[in-house]
């Protein structure tokens, strides 16, 4: 066990173990500061937070295990705590466990500790939130507790940094002189049940530890049993073991907590006294915040502020980043004048790509600022409580609200915010639903099309309502989809929605800043690189092959068409003249038509024909897959107006309104009829035209989820666009 510590070559591994809401992560931040990074545990979607610190001249690797109430595991995601402690599944067993215990709720917190004691790893127990325990009038005899547990017991207030030195001393001391918490003495029938399983597994040729065998017995739907395989024999073995427990009048599903709590009851006898006014402040604040009327009102007020910050307050910062990107482009571009290809790659591909990554940062940082505040104060749990019923029916839960709401501003921070959901199934569903919410990048498309085609014929009121309702197309499709998805696709077992209402606490700036920094860095490093790659790839598809011939032909046809204009030659000499600009736009248009993406658009047009899209719309749609807002600029280029148009552009609206089919069965008819316009808007509402979202989902879940959701949304968008067009054009 402890021999490994003496080999000085590797860092000492210490794991932080504890229930949710114990201040475990705050303690982790205190101990490691910014020397931490986030990885993923192999094969699952749980994040692994690892930090470095140095104690007594030793390098220490600190792992912040996911907060959990017990070692029971129904899903691979939950198995991670036990696997980390037991040195399974690519994890190395820790040399020491620091058990973080909420001092206001010692007995329940010690259940996990008592379970972990089975693994025979040295421990130190931290009674955190010591100030709250004292405030609540609890008197805890730590000397007696340390005596009973047989390991060092330290009191801390992690958010203020109190007791950290004691903790460090205790860690150093325990590394030199490891101490263990005495294991629970199982009654004979539990030992017998364990032996039944161990023997059974041995006959199947499966190797398992005693603690793992116990987990298989205690956890109905055990993820350890799932891993052991032998689906033909193992259920019979487990049934026999559970029967042994039932024979003694115990329910196998609750026998473990019952026995542990009995054990803890004896252990804690005389340790804690003076329990009293625990919940008084919490109660009176909850009376307001969870009130049917006031609570709901305050909830919407808080959410309004969060949403407003993403939707409006982030705007100036995002504009600043966009302006900065343009400034850098204007700075670098002239230096590369001689090599147009490199110039375009650096300027339109790389710099624009980096700008396209950084532009998400303000929203991510703002959202995580608010999430840290909401979580640390304890309000997030209340918000989830208030809203749970709205989401429960389709497999989401109350905590889905913040990610989904954020999705109306931008899916990127929304997807990342889904980390606040502990239940893996609800988290995955929430992540997959978030891109359906009508993000602000869809708005320009709606504004352009509604402004050009709905407002002139139907007036501003209908236009306003159309715009409003378009925002809910995605959500209206997503919720039933989530319901189907949860019943038919998701194979992960449902977890009960259990929400601990923590005491209200004052958040600390330090924690909030670390959270923001951690998420921002995560996004830029992990997702940013992928987004940048997308940006360069799509640049190349729109740029190549750039033959001089195309420009020559465009120029010749332009000059032929403008023969009659007086002073044509002079105007073309001056690059700033309106005619020159027009010619440039015409050449850009010709280039995009001849680019790989343009050719593909023409080639793929028949696919979009049932939705009424011509090749220009198809190219616009295809080019906006990396980022949907690009469609406006692409439309500008395709219709020879240049890339600088925006959704309010009258020129663009006029051109769209006058655009006619050149050939085919609809020759001479306008391209943009109302059915086409709505088909296009519905397509944008449902399609995941956002490389950044794909990259973030891949980062948060996996590439197969990311690709799956991309394909599903694209297919859904196409199908819905076809239905809208086909029905609309028959009305």
């Amino acid at each position: 066990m402890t021999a490994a510590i003496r080999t000085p070559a590797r860092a000492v591994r210490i794991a932080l173990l504890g229930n949710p809401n114990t201040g475990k992560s705050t303690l982790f931040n205190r101990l490691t500061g910014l020397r931490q990074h986030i990885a993923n545990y192999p094969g699952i979607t749980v994040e692994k937070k690892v930090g470095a610190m140095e104690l007594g001249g030793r390098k220490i690797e600190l792992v912040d295990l996911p907060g959990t109430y017990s070692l029971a595991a129904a899903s691979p995601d939950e198995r991670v705590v036990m696997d980390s402690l037991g040195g399974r599944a690519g994890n190395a067993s820790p040399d020491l466990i620091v058990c973080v215990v909420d001092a206001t709720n010692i007995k329940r917190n010690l259940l996990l500790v008592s379970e972990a004691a089975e693994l025979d790893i040295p421990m130190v127990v931290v009674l955190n939130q010591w100030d709250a325990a004292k405030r609540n009038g609890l008197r805890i005899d730590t000397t007696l507790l340390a005596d009973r547990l047989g390991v060092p017991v330290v009191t801390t207030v992690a958010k203020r940094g109190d007791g950290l030195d004691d903790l460090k001393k205790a860690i150093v001391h325990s590394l030199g002189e490891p101490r263990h918490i005495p294991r629970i003495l199982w009654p004979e029938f539990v030992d017998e049940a364990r032996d039944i399983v161990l023997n059974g597994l041995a006959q199947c040729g499966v190797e398992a530890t005693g603690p793992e065998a116990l987990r298989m017995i205690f956890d109905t739907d055990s993820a350890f049993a799932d891993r052991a395989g032998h689906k033909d024999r193992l259920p019979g073995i487990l049934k026999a073991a559970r029967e042994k427990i039932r024979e003694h009048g115990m329910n196998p599903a609750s026998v473990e907590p019952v026995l542990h709590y009995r054990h803890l009851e004896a252990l804690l006898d005389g340790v804690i006294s003076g329990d009293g006014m625990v919940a008084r402040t919490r109660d009176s604040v909850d009376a307001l915040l969870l009130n049917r009327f006031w609570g709901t009102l305050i909830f919407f007020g808080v959410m309004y502020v969060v949403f407003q910050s993403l939707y409006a307050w982030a705007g100036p910062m995002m504009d600043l980043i966009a302006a900065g990107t343009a400034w850098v482009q204007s700075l670098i571009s002239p230096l590369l004048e001689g090599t147009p290809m490199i110039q375009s790659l650096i300027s339109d591909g790389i710099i624009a790509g980096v700008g396209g990554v950084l532009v998400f940062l303000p929203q991510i940082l703002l959202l995580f600022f608010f999430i840290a505040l909401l979580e640390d104060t304890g309000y997030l749990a209340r918000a989830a409580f208030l809203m749970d019923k709205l989401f429960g029916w389709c497999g989401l839960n109350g905590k889905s609200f913040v990610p989904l709401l954020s999705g109306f501003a931008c899916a990127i921070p929304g997807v990342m915010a889904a980390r606040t959901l502990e239940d893996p199934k609800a988290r995955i569903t929430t992540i997959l639903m978030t891109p359906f919410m009508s993000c602000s990048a869809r708005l320009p498309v709606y504004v352009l099309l509604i402004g050009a085609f709905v407002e002139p014929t139907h007036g501003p009121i209908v236009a306003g309502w159309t715009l409003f309702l378009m925002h809910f197309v995605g959500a209206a499709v997503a919720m039933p989809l989530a319901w189907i998805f949860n019943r038919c696709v998701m194979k992960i077992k449902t977890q009960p929605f259990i929400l601990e209402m923590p005491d209200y606490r004052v958040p600390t700036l330090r924690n909030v800043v670390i959270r923001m920094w951690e998420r921002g860095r995560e996004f830029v490093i992990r997702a940013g690189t992928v987004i940048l790659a997308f940006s360069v790839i799509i640049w190349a598809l729109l740029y190549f092959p750039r033959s001089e011939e195309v420009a020559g032909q465009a120029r010749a046809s332009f000059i032929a068409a403008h023969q009659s204009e007086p002073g044509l030659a002079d105007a073309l000499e001056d690059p700033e003249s309106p005619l020159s600009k027009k010619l440039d736009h015409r050449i850009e248009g010709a280039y995009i038509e001849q680019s790989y993406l343009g050719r593909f658009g023409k080639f793929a047009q028949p696919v979009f024909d049932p939705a009424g899209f011509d090749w220009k719309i198809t190219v616009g749609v295809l080019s906006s897959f990396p980022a949907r807002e690009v469609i406006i600029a692409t439309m500008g280029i395709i219709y020879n107006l240049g890339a600088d148009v925006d959704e309010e552009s009258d020129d663009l609206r006029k051109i769209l309104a006058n655009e006619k089919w050149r050939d085919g069965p609809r020759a001479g008819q306008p391209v943009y009829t109302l059915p086409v316009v709505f088909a296009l808007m519905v397509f944008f509402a449902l399609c995941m035209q956002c490389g950044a979202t794909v990259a973030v989902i891949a980062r948060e879940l996996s590439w197969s989820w990311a690709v799956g959701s991309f394909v599903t949304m694209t297919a859904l968008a196409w199908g819905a666009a076809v239905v809208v067009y086909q029905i609309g054009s028959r009305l």
Partner: protein
Amino acid sequence: MNKTLGEIHHDRALEIVAISSNCARAGRLAALGFLPGSRVRVSRIAPLGDPISIEMAGQEISVRRAEADLIEVKEVA
């Protein structure tokens, strides 16, 4: 006259009589301390009627009624 915790609509002093299921969800509730003999009360109900918030030994835990139905309770004076 025992009821399940999910059937409770008022704030009464209650005692858990049994965990009437051996499913995984029952195991989780037990780990949180929902065990026979524990004193509980339904301290709050969400605006839409579900979930409910349960106070037990100074801690407050909210669960959906569907889960609370796994817990059998009786009223105590």
